[in-house]
């Protein structure tokens, strides 16, 4: 059982590294989709079935298709890929590595609740729907306004004659 988790975690990290280091942007997008699939697998292990489905549909489906679509619309490939100098790359890698060190060191000493949850059905659609439409109904409605604004904005930005 725990081997599934460690395999998924390893796969997610490997694919995430490929996203960063792959020269071809299309390959980067495909590796990011694989990363999202591994994360969806981790949601299954966490008993979060609703998040699993939403991750697959929204992230791996909608968002990444949008990325791929724009990449192909702009006709980007390996030759047009801008590159940073070696000094900047080294500095970026060192900065990110130090940040990881700080994060892990901080979180290592935190006190986690040791009692394990007996509830196993909190990730189900029924339970989450009840919470969403009682406790979080106002943020849910605000999210619809956000989507409307985003939709209007992207249509306006995408129009040919903007000015």
């Amino acid at each position, binding site marked *: *059982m725990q081997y599934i988790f460690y395999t998924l975690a390893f796969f997610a990290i490997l694919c995430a590294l490929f996203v960063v280091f792959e020269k071809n942007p299309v390959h*980067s997008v495909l590796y990011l989709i694989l990363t999202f699939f591994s994360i969806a697998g981790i949601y299954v292990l966490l008993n979060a079935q609703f998040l699993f489905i939403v991750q697959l549909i*929204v992230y791996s489906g*909608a968002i990444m298709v949008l*990325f791929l679509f724009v990449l192909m619309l702009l006709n980007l490939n390996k030759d047009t890929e801008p590159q940073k100098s070696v000094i900047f790359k080294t*500095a970026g890698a060192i900065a990110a590595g130090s940040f990881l060190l700080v994060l892990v060191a901080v979180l290592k000493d935190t006190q986690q609740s040791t009692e394990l949850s007996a509830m196993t059905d909190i990730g189900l659609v029924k339970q989450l729907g009840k919470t969403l439409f009682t406790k979080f109904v106002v943020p849910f409605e605000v999210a619809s306004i956000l*989507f409307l604004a*985003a939709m209007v904005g992207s249509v306006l930005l995408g129009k040919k004659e903007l000015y």
Partner: protein
Amino acid sequence: MLMQINHIVPIEHIITLSCILFCIGVMGVLLRRNAIIILMCIELMLNAVNILFATFSAYNGNPDGQIFVFFIMVVAAAEVAVGLALLVLIYRNTRSVDVSLLDRLKW
């Protein structure tokens, strides 16, 4: 068989996985100059935080964390739609997605 990760995998390991994914996202933002890759790395960072929310939610038996993940996904979808529309506009004006060309607001 109902899967029970919280009896087997210690929570520290999932937190570490989330930290590693977040830092890979940070590294991507710092290393790459392609604006689309930078947006993708931001998505990766959002996902790392989502794992953390879902983990704490599952380990503490509180569904609020998973609702938060849902809202993060909502915001991420809206952000990507607007961001990519902006990116297409930038490409139309500069014929490139290189973020280092967009330094007119610098200094």
